[in-house]
């Protein structure tokens, strides 16, 4: 039993939904998305590994990209959620809340028993 490993796997399994949740707010370009993710959660140690994740989400049709002009420098590529991405995120949020409540209930029960 390794609590650190369990939490690591949990982060690994949920980080892509965190990315979808951020993009549900508004379209973001890569650096903006990665920085927000880093500031809010501190989930990711190597920020560059988010880009393969974004490519995979795009390949799965959960996000798409649009190029927009930038006030400073070349045009930027923005990621935005697709309709499929929104449905996937909504389904995950429902499941996550059930999971979270179950785990919280069990852990609170365990804490009272100690």
């Amino acid at each position, binding site marked *: 039993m390794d609590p*650190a490993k369990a939490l*690591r796997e949990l*982060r*690994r399994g949920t*980080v*892509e939904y965190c990315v979808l949740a951020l993009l549900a707010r508004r379209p973001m*370009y*890569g*650096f*903006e998305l*990665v920085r927000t993710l*880093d500031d809010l959660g*501190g*989930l*990711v*140690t*190597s*920020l*560059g*590994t*988010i*880009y*393969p*994740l*974004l*490519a*995979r989400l*795009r*390949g799965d049709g959960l996000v798409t990209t649009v190029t927009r002009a930038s006030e*400073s*420098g*070349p045009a*930027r*590529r923005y990621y935005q959620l697709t309709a499929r991405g929104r449905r996937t995120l909504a389904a995950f949020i429902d499941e996550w809340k059930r999971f979270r409540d179950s785990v919280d209930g069990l852990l609170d029960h365990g804490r009272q028993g100690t």
Partner: protein
Amino acid sequence: MNGTRTAADQLVAEYLNRLREVTRDLEPALRADILLDVEQHIRDARGAAAADDLDAVREILAGLGPADQIARATGSPSTARSQRSPSERAYDRITVGLLAVGLVTLPALGWVVGVVLLWRGPRWTLRDRLLGTLVTLGPSAFLAVNTVLLFAMTKTMCIEPVDGPMVCDGPPGPPAWLVLVLYAISVVIGVLTCGHLAARAGRADRAARTGRSPSVAVAE
């Protein structure tokens, strides 16, 4: 300032070159996406940094993480394949190649080098190493022993009378066809062993690939 700026640009160029190298086997569109995003990330991060100098660039690249880690995060077996450098791939091939050549030639320098590489290589077990050493030596050893035996028998069994031609008496050596068949069998076993060593190297690579975590590098 110019010198600092040049060093920072150089550092970025080296990082991107490494990323291009380790993603070279990726599907082209996926690779282009990742390279474009990372390049844009660096540009944006430099623009947002308090100072665009070498330290700032170092910090940005450290935040991105090693290029190899980004490549691994694609989870693509083809990317994992790219984790092996050409020299590592060549090492395995040269090792097995030299041992295979040693099968049909006398154990000359090439075979010796092959055995050294086999024992130093990371992909083979002790059993593989023993097998590779002994079996690939087999055909040459067989020929050598056969030659020595033949010579010894000839020497001890032949008599040359004063008044007549030399007469060889005693048990004859093994027939030539039997020697050839046994030699061929030892070569075939050696070839199969070389195939086993090559397959083992391939399996070790595949195991290493599946053992990697093809995902985002999350916090501990």
